[in-house]
């Protein structure tokens, strides 16, 4: 947030700010200021702006109330906040399903006129996007969480593992399986010989 732990002597880590907020609640405003826009953006992209208004606010409300549950051995609060947001998003599966249906829908008005090749390219891109949206929507919730935390939120595997409270290996495996499914949906070669069924722990 404010600075990485080794940036300077007086720059607090998230952990030190949260620890102070135990007794001085307004300190939690520092965490809010550092991450609210980012969490909102993630939820808004994944669901929609209205859901993001609610979920991002709820994320920080929950985080504030549970601030004594933050593991102070972790300097950075980002994964923790994404973890809370992910749990809340899980309550909006229907909104999310609707979102993917909307993303998968082909443009109603068809491609704009123009050179034949360009029209063909547009149609192809449109279909590809639709296939991709369907594929992302068809992922298991666990795989989709990992994929989107990595791709949209730019979390590392390690941070995703912290956020979701699962082992690192589980994150890596969910991610590569999700990726393989998408590649397949886009017509690429599936390097993993993707298997359906039980995924991981």
């Amino acid at each position, binding site marked *: *947030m404010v600075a990485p732990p080794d940036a300077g002597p007086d720059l607090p880590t998230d952990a030190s700010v949260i620890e102070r907020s135990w007794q001085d609640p307004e300190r939690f405003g520092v965490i809010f200021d550092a991450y609210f826009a980012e969490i909102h953006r993630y939820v808004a992209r994944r669901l929609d702006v209205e859901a993001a*208004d609610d979920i991002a606010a709820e994320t920080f409300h929950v985080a504030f109330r549970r601030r004594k549950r933050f593991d102070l051995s972790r300097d950075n609060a980002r994964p923790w906040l994404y973890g809370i947001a992910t749990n809340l998003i899980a309550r909006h599966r229907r909104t999310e399903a609707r979102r993917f249906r909307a993303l998968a829908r082909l443009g109603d008005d068809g491609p704009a006129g123009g050179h034949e090749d360009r029209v063909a390219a547009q149609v192809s891109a449109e279909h590809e996007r639709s296939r991709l949206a369907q594929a*992302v929507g068809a992922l298991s919730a666990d795989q989709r969480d990992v994929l989107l935390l990595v791709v949209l939120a730019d979390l590392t595997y390690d941070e995703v593992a912290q956020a979701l*409270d699962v082992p690192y290996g589980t994150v890596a495996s969910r991610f590569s399986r999700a990726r393989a499914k998408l590649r397949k949906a886009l017509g690429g070669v599936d390097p993993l010989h993707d298997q359906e069924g039980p995924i991981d722990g």
Partner: protein
Amino acid sequence: MDELQAVRELFPETPPPAARVTARARRRATGAAGRRLPRLRWALPGLGLVAAATAVALAVGSAGSAGDGPKRPVPTSSLPLDGRAVFLAAAEQAERQPMGGYWYCDQISGQSYLLKAGYAVIGAHLETFEWTGAAKGSGGRFYGRDLPARPATPEDEAVWERAGAPTSFRVMSNGHPMTYTRKAGRWEEDKGGQHSGGRFFLMGFGKELTTQEVLALPTDSRTLAKRFLSPPSPRRPGAKRGPAPVSNAYKLLRAADLLTSAPLPPKVGAGLMRALVAQPGVHTIATASDALGRQGVALAVDQPSWGWDLRPDGTFVRKDNGYRTQEQLIFDKKTGALLAEQSVLLTPGGEYRSRKPGFVIDYWLIRSYGWTDRRPSPPPALPFR
């Protein structure tokens, strides 16, 4: 096209949250009830802003001193030997508490604010209730509700009543206005707090522990001190700086957190209490009381007169407070249960120059915690009248 880039492009960028949305969310994220329109009654935070300190002192000083009530803890009656004996007896009692099917913890947090009108209120007043089933699959929930802001001491209550007993208190907090009201909120279940049970979060493990793992924690006080009262490590590999040294006050807070995070077996809790009292800088107070009027034996750590202050750019700067505080953990003498953790004014000065020693700057009260055989639910009754 790379499928990951394609996914990134599938989700278009969105506009940033509206200022109104952000402001409202921020109030909820810092403990303000923030639902009613505030009356313009300015107060300043009990801790924090450098620039505010003078104004607070002026405001409070001109209205006469609103001191401490009879129920306030008195940090001066420190009796190292007696206190220690009483404390160790309490630790022995902590070994004898029975187990049940559900573990719960009901906590209240609040912070004092000095108002211009010459009295102090407790704001950011929240109660949280959480429970976890011992067995896997038996569930767990987390609830919270806003508690009414209240005058901090009986003297403050008198001044507040003379001021017409206003029902909302507007405070400035690090440049953000917040309003605390006399209204109690309803219990709300935190949507992110549901879990299946049988697991507990204990700080420092980096993961949740199963009930069995919690029950198998070491009981020896030296092992416990090493395990729990040492720096929060390991840091991430590659971090350049090692763990910061652990302050004695932090050790108290850490222990309080452990005791209220999971059903530590009685012998583990007792071992932790013995580990605490053996720490340098930790002394005992034979009799202390909390905001609910409960008396007990306390462990205390005197704090230095300086602290960190928040700058507008979000960084911290070292600042001399001009006052000293003491962190206290209060334990029930009969059961050894943790009753409260509170920060108490030791030497008045600075923002608190008009307050008497013993003034409670903030508190975290453990209303109750422990095992029960029935699935718990948050208590409807308010903790304060």
